[in-house]
């Protein structure tokens, strides 16, 4: 009998736990009409995503009938999930769209969020690396010979007719700040809105060479898949419109956007405001969200030069559309 009681108690406790769990997920009552969309962001929660947070907080997504669940998993997972039709949208960088399409993933870029390719070469101000030509013969640290930073680096060299053989590229992992400060390398490749800000925060005078000043490559934006485009264009239109409104508001009032971000980024204090500030010029454009066909051709050319694409895509124009931003 006692054993039976204990058994019942355990069952009861389990039921209680389950009830608590399900209760929690059911709390946003009244949002039942909203379609929940999991959105792979490509990076950890960060004030760089302020336009998304603003659009969510001000109800722009809700007005489009959407509730966004931010998913901070790796970029490649997002593309694969969208390509496989599991999710409708993801935030990814442009070169990834071309690499994915080359492997048959039916992803389409529908909104350019970063108008400027955010990669930059950063050096100490007194190193004498003031423009791309100064990189010749210098040691440059890269987080690795892959990813957006490598694409940006090769694009920069190529646009300035510098052979990669004339620069000593070193693999330093994601230790750009430490490697530059300790003079292990003379310059590092990183994100224009991150490493320079971090270095400046440590009191170091830095010189920044922006890749975007030399070559226009497709940067981060929103992708969907061909099925969603064909069967549910309203969903795409609603999502893009909401995000564009969030972007407009962020550019107009970054301080408000940062305050909103604090609700979405756990433990965010004011120290990362400069990151948002440095991001704003990378986003600005008129009109917002439009992607330029030339940029896609240049991105494809750089990927081919790097050997990441074996051949030109069959139909480069199918990789993007401005239908929802014009």
């Amino acid at each position, binding site marked *: 009998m006692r054993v039976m009681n204990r058994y019942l108690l355990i069952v009861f406790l389990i039921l209680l736990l389950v009830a608590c769990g399900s209760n929690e997920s059911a709390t946003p009552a009244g949002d039942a009409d909203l379609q929940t969309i999991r959105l792979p962001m490509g990076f950890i929660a960060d004030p760089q995503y302020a336009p998304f947070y603003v659009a969510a907080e001000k109800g722009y997504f809700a007005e489009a009938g959407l509730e966004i669940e931010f998913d901070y998993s790796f970029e490649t997972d997002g593309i694969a999930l969208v390509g496989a039709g599991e999710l409708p949208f993801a935030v990814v960088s442009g070169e990834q769209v071309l690499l994915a399409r080359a*492997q048959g993933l039916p992803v389409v870029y529908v909104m350019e969020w970063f108008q400027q390719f955010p990669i930059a070469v950063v050096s100490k101000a007194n190193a004498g690396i003031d423009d791309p030509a100064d990189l010749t013969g210098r040691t440059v640290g890269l987080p690795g010979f*892959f990813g957006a930073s490598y694409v940006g680096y090769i694009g920069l060299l190529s646009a300035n007719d510098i052979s990669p053989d004339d620069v000593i590229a070193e693999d330093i992992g994601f230790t750009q700040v430490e490697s530059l400060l300790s003079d292990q390398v003379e310059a590092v490749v990183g994100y224009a809105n991150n490493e320079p800000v971090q270095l400046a925060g440590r009191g170091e005078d830095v010189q920044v060479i922006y890749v975007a000043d030399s070559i226009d490559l497709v940067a981060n934006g929103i992708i969907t898949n061909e099925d969603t485009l064909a069967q549910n264009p309203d969903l795409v239109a609603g999502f893009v419109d909401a995000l564009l409104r969030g972007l407009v508001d962020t550019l107009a009032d970054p301080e408000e956007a940062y305050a909103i971000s604090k609700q979405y980024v756990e433990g965010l204090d004011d120290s990362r405001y400069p990151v948002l500030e440095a991001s704003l010029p990378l986003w600005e454009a008129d009109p917002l969200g439009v992607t330029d066909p030339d940029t896609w051709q240049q991105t494809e050319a750089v990927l081919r030069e790097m050997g990441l694409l074996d051949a030109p895509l069959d139909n480069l124009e199918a990789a993007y559309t401005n239908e929802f931003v014009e």
Partner: protein
Amino acid sequence: MMSFLNRQPAALTTAISFLLLILGWHLLTVLGDYDRFILPGPADVWAQFQVVVADGRLLRHTLITFSEIVPGLLIGVLIAAPLGYLLANSPLANRLISPYLIASQAIPIIAIAPLLTIWIQSTYWSRVLVAVLVVFFPILVNVIAGLRSVPDELYEVMVSLRASRGQIFRKLEFPAALPVLLAGLKVGATLAVIGTLVGEFVQPKSEGLGFLLVTARYQFKTDLVFVVLLTLAALALSLYGLVALAERRLLRWQANGK
């Protein structure tokens, strides 16, 4: 069917199971009609394998990973075995050190690996160290278990024969612990592959199978991901086989005694 298979030579049954696996995989891709980036078929993977073999990439990256696995395994054994001996023989050392060793196993290697890359400037050694850490514990546990399995009566016999400490070690403890140590080494050999890969994942740099895997994922070449995974499996199997071979030689006395 089973009795038929039982009567065949081992090589044949292995080949049959391998072919069945490939066939099942092929059927899955055909029946499921999966896109190649989701689940490539055996033919896609074979084609990709030929590409990376022909351009030399697979061999280059495999050799680099191999050159990290082997020192990782050896250093792991060289640290774990003497420490295991100490812990098995000294209750004081056991009380002083064991709690920390056990607690350390609760820390996932994936959480420490990034720190190691910061602490150790050398990419190579930071990757080797991850392998060492993964290999260390199973070897240690097996050494202790092996030594503790020696019956007290045998110790008493050795003592009554006035055997020295060195003689007890050489004639009793070492042979007695060897089977369990070798079993630990077999586990360690496969773990060393995983450890090295974790190290390469955290510090992809531009070489090693971990780098090739990261690049393949970046390029959405799932067939290349499979090639790397199968290569890693082959590496682990070879190392396991080597230890098993050594085991058969070293423990021949045991088989003869039966």
